[in-house]
Every structure is written in structure tokens, then in C-alpha cells.
């Protein structure tokens, strides 16, 4: 997928990924690891993302994924389409409309809703973005704007 191929209505999606316990824990551990920033992996107190008993004590049926995992998977999908331009200028908004449970299948998706000239010679691509499960139920929804400059 390259931006030149995109038209309003173009849609693409990631390969399916299971939201495994490990993927949830990786994100849980990343938080104190980034905070400590001492070259070692850190862990934290039980969370609703990695501890069944704690999740149940908070009224949940079991652990659920941190929403930022699906946000990052959507961002990866956009980066693969728009390249580094997307991390230098753009917008991404995501809203978590359904919990993602352990081993649930997640597919990240994007659809172009508008293409327009931006003020600096770049092209702005407006997109609907979402994550869905293997029954096409939406789990995360949102929108994005990616700016791409075409070299002369």
C-alpha cells in the first residue's frame, strides 16, 4: 500500500492477531520500564490487564487489554501505509468502545474518507480507523489524518 494508490473509499487491514495474555502483559510491563528507564525490565502492582483476580474484583469477567495496544496496532497500520511522515505530522484519535478479552482476535482497519491539499504542499488523507474482532464487531473506533509530501 502506498499513498499514490489510495482513493476515497480505499480500505485496508492488518493480519489478524490474538490478544494474548502475553501481549497484554508486555504493555503492562512497558509502563514502569519506560518510567524507570534504567536498562532493566520493571513490573508493577496487579492491574486489570494482567491479573485475573484483580480484574474480577473490579467488576470485570477477566483481564482486558489496555486500549493503547489497539491504538498502537492502528498506528502501525498507518505507518506501514504513510511511512515516517505520519510520525512527523498527523492526528490519531481512538475510542475504546468494547473491551478486548484474552485471546480475542483483533484486526486493525483503515478507510480513506477524504483526500485534500494541505497548506504546505502536502496531501492530507482523512481516515476512519478501527479494530474489529473476527466477527467484524468493532472494538476500537476513531479517525486519523496523515500528511504526505511528494518529492518533486
Amino acid at each position, binding site marked *: 500500500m502506498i499513498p499514490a494508490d489510495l482513493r476515497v473509499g480505499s480500505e485496508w487491514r492488518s493480519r489478524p492477531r490474538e490478544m494474548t495474555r502475553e*501481549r497484554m502483559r508486555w504493555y503492562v510491563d512497558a509502563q514502569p520500564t519506560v518510567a524507570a528507564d534504567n536498562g532493566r525490565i520493571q513490573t508493577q502492582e496487579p492491574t486489570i490487564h494482567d491479573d485475573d483476580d*484483580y480484574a474480577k474484583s473490579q467488576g470485570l469477567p477477566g483481564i482486558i487489554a489496555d486500549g493503547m495496544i489497539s491504538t498502537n496496532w492502528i498506528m502501525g497500520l498507518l505507518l506501514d501505509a504513510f511511512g515516517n511522515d505520519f510520525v512527523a505530522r498527523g492526528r*490519531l484519535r481512538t475510542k475504546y468502545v468494547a473491551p478486548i478479552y484474552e485471546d480475542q482476535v483483533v484486526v486493525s482497519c483503515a478507510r480513506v474518507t477524504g483526500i485534500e491539499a494541505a497548506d504546505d504542499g502536502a496531501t492530507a488523507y482523512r481516515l476512519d480507523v478501527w479494530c474489529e474482532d473476527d466477527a467484524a464487531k468493532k472494538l476500537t473506533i476513531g479517525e486519523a489524518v496523515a500528511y504526505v509530501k511528494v518529492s518533486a
Partner: protein
Amino acid sequence: MAIGRYTSDLERGDVLGPVDYTLSPFAVREYCHAVELHQDCFQGTHDQIMPPTLIHLDKLRLYRHACPLGTGPHARVHVEYDATVHDAVRVDDRLRVAGRVSDRYEKRGRDYVHIDMELTRVADGKLLISYRDTVIVSYKGSVA
């Protein structure tokens, strides 16, 4: 002012930070491994940049600074991420993050908090990322 204790105490108008820090290659690579962002721009040993989503952990940085006692008695649930990137954030840059609680309201028995944050480069004050974070600060399970 409701800072100084739990994140569940935060009220509209509370100011979080600013907090300065230097973005390290290790922090970026660890974060990207965790969320499976394997693009070269995050993994390299030079010209490495920050995934914009890492701004979300800057919110936790502000929480630790302003709410040292932690989350409070109930879980905090993230509802919405909304980030606008104005320029790339480069590894090894000295950064400043600041936030303000722009709203707190109750909806269907749950307390929602919006925090508006800005990440700037210390050297020249350039705004790099604007971020609005929405959370339920004291999640108590399903609400009838």
C-alpha cells in the same frame, strides 16, 4: 486543587507538571517492542524517533508527579486517545510535558476526566505533540 494524593481525586483546573526528561533509545525500543511497532524509525541506533503514542506514558509521568499515592481504590480505565503530532520527537532530546485537567463530569454513574497535555522540546520551546486523554477515574464495573 486536588493534586498530591490519588488520580481519582483530580478536578477540573488541576495543573499537572511540567516535568522535564530526556527521551532515551532504550525507552523507545522497549515501548515499541511491547506494542509490536517494528518500523526502522523506532529501532535504529541513530535518527531514532518516538512513536507519538508514547505521549500516553507521559500522562503516567505526570500522574506520578502530581498524584504520588496512585490510582485510588478502584481501577482507572482509559476511554479515548486523541493526539496531534506537530513535529517528530527525537531520541536524546530534552523534553517537557505539562497537563491540565480540562474537564471532569459524571456520565451514567461513572466519573470521566479529560487531561489536555503538551509535549515540547526544551531547547526551543517547540510544540511537538498535543494530546487529550479521557479516562474513567474510578471504574466500579458495569453500571445498571
